[in-house]
Every structure is written in structure tokens, then in C-alpha cells.
């Protein structure tokens, strides 16, 4: 009677039984990579907007402070999206005939809101508050990236929990003096470029960060990595 299986089947079956571990591990790894990829997180992906508003032009080009438009960022959870009136503060005078700005003028005429596409959208089960981060010395660009170099807005971070925790586990690595929070070109201290604060000179982030954690009374890492800090 002829053999049903060829002799090589022995080797193949051993290899696949042994290899299954790796195949399963690979699948888990691949799934995790997909979850972290811009395909899922939209990190670095420009979203279409009703008006191609350029932060680069308004922030770096004209030197307008973040708070001119995002007025509630220091006092509330929500940074605030400016009403059409804020646009018209200047655009009642400049670029009054530009077709790109027609949706803005239409919004003012008809009293209908401009419908922007939300770019930094945290899941609804996450509690996030802008004001506390600003008061503890977290710079805008620490989370939002180089907004002054973004002709169109995209989210800089992945907004994944691990991304939040990176900083909550070691806040001293990112803190800066409060006066520098809205400075989009702030650089962490180095020996060439020390940061002066309270009559002291800090030449590295470790010493500055540790000082600021105490000065701004940042809670302990155990507190700010506790589940109910963000999931409340």
C-alpha cells in the first residue's frame, strides 16, 4: 500500500507545530503595530477643513499668541474654538474678497457655525483638562507639536494611553517655566542655552524638571498614573 503522506511531511509538521508559537506572536505584534500606526491614530494625518486655516501663517508669520483665539485654554478643560467674530476681527479688513474665506463670511452673514473637523479627538472615556497642564508648566508644543510649522492641522501624538503615560510617568522630563508654555520655539535647557528662573540658572532638563515638580506642586507619579486621574 502506498504511503498517503510524503516523507517530507514529518519535517513540515514538526516545523509548523514549533513555528505556530512564532506565527501567533507575529500576529499579536502585527495587530499592535496597526493599532499604533497613523492608519488608526491619524497621527500626522492632515484632515480636510472647510477653510484651509494655516496655523503656520498666523502663529509664525504674524506672531499671534495661541490665546488670542483659544481664549479658554488657561481656565477650562476646553481650549476653545474661536467664534467667527474672532476671524473677522482682522478679516473684516484684510483678505475681504478672498474666495478661500467665503465660508467665514457666509458664517457671519447667516449666523451658522463653521463646521471644523476635530483633529485632536480623545476618546470620551478620557478626562482631559487643558488648564491644569498649562499651570503645571506643560508647553503647548509638548503635546501639539510644532503648530507654528503646520500649514494644515494634524495631531502630533498618537493620543494613545501609552503616549499620555510616557509623560505622566516622568513629568520632570517635559516641564518648563510657566512663562514659556506658549512659546512655540522653546528649547529645553542645555549648557549652551541655560534657562534662568527665580535667580537660578538651569543648564539641563533634569535639574529644571525636578525643581519645577516641587515649585508647581506636581503630584506624585503614583497619583498622576492612577487610573482615576484620567478615567473618572
Amino acid at each position, binding site marked *: 500500500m502506498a504511503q498517503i503522506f510524503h516523507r517530507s511531511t514529518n519535517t513540515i509538521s514538526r516545523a509548523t507545530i514549533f513555528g505556530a508559537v512564532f506565527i501567533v506572536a507575529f500576529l499579536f505584534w502585527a495587530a499592535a503595530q496597526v493599532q499604533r500606526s497613523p492608519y488608526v491614530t491619524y497621527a500626522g494625518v492632515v484632515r480636510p477643513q472647510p477653510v484651509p486655516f494655516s496655523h503656520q501663517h498666523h502663529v509664525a508669520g*504674524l*506672531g*499671534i*499668541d495661541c*490665546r*488670542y483665539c483659544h*481664549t479658554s485654554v488657561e481656565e477650562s*478643560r*476646553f481650549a*476653545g*474654538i474661536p*467664534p467667527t*467674530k*474672532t476671524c*473677522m*476681527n*482682522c478679516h*473684516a*479688513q*484684510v*483678505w475681504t474678497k478672498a474666495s478661500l474665506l467665503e465660508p467665514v463670511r457666509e458664517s457671519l452673514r447667516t*449666523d*451658522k*457655525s463653521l*463646521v471644523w473637523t476635530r483633529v485632536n479627538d480623545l*476618546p*470620551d*472615556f478620557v478626562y482631559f483638562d487643558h488648564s491644569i497642564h498649562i499651570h503645571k508648566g506643560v508647553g503647548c508644543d509638548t503635546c501639539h507639536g510644532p503648530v507654528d510649522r503646520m500649514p494644515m492641522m494634524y495631531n502630533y501624538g498618537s493620543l494613545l494611553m501609552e503616549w499620555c503615560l510616557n509623560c505622566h510617568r516622568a513629568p520632570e522630563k517635559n516641564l518648563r517655566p510657566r512663562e514659556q508654555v506658549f512659546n512655540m520655539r522653546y528649547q529645553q535647557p542645555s549648557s549652551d542655552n541655560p534657562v534662568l528662573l527665580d535667580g537660578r540658572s538651569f543648564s539641563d532638563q533634569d535639574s529644571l524638571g525636578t525643581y519645577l515638580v516641587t515649585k508647581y506642586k506636581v503630584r506624585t507619579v503614583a497619583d498622576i498614573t492612577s487610573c482615576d486621574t484620567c478615567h473618572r
Partner: protein
Amino acid sequence: MADLRKIAPLGTAVLLLAGCRQDMHNQPRFKPLAKSDFYTDLRSARPPVEGTVARGDLRADSYLYSGMIPGSDTPGEYMPFPVNEEVLARGRERFNIYCTPCHSRLGDGNGIVPTRGFARKPPSFHIDRLRKAPLGHFFDIITHGFGIMPDYAAQIAPKDRWAIVAYIRALQLSQNASADQIPRGQAMPSPMPKFRGDPGSGATLPESAAPSKAQPEEPK
């Protein structure tokens, strides 16, 4: 049985896809300024009912909210609260956010935005008329706007408007001070360099720094 074998993978796929629902991510509640299909203007953020007084917003102190001497239309020449260094620092910060795009950090009206096509630039705070203008006048203009300047009532809280007013007065003093007004023990500021053209109006350079023919030649 053959049927079940065909259906089983499909059923598994359906079960797996069910895990992709985003119900927890997008809960049926409104985030600030989110769209609402319930109201005809599609806004979830509702304007307060007319006559609503928010807590702490009674506006009983009419001078604090109008800059006008109570019972008259005359702007007052006093602050509704004492000014200290903290108030001035706050005023400087707010001025630099909301006013400098047009008025410039110096308050001379040479901000960047009017250069991009405004019919005219704002006046300098250092002209005689505005140096003599009462404090309440500045508060009133921030609150209601003036000429092509829009009102900033929505962007700047009343107390911050007063802090800005105090800072404007400080700016005016800074540009019109004489040597004997400097308090004892304070360092004398260095004299302002002479500029070619209006300071802040564009590519103005201090005369000493500008390349000129008078530069000493390299020794040969």
C-alpha cells in the same frame, strides 16, 4: 454539516468585527461646541436665556464693567481696584496677547496686522490726545470697539481689560519719562537709539547699526 462549515468562518468574522464598535469612544453626550441634531441651529452649546446672571457676574459695580462714572457718560480717571505689580504684569501679558497684533508691543500702533492691508493703522498711545485720555476711555474702547477696531468683550474678561488699561498707562509713562522721574537706586535706562524712519514700521534699523559709508575702513 457542510452548511455549518461555510457559515462558521463568516460568523467568527462578524463576531470579531463587532469588537470594532466605538461606542465607548464616542458616547452619546456632547463635547464642547459639538454638533447637535436636536436644535435647529445645530449647536449643542446654547446661549444663556436673556437676563441670565451667572454666578459672580451680577455687575453691581457699574464702573468695573463700563469705565463710566456711575450715573454719567463720562469716563473715569481711576482704577476700580488697586494696581500693584501683579496687575501690571497681568496687563502686560494680556496686552501682548490681544493688543500687540495691531498696536505693537510698544503701543505705537505699528503692529504687524495693519500692515497687511488695513485702511489705516491704529494711533500711537503716545500722542498727546491719548496721553490725556482718562482710563475709563480705554476700558470703554476695549469693551465696545472704536472705528475699525472690533470689541474685545468676548475675548478679554473685565478685570483683565482694566489690567491692560493700567499697562497702557505704564507704557505711556515709559515713553515720556525724564531722567529725574527714575526712582533712586534704579539703573538709568540707556538712551533709545535713533531710528531711520518710524520705529516698528518695517525694516527700520538703529542708525548706529545701519551699514553706512562712515564705517571705518579695514587697516591696510
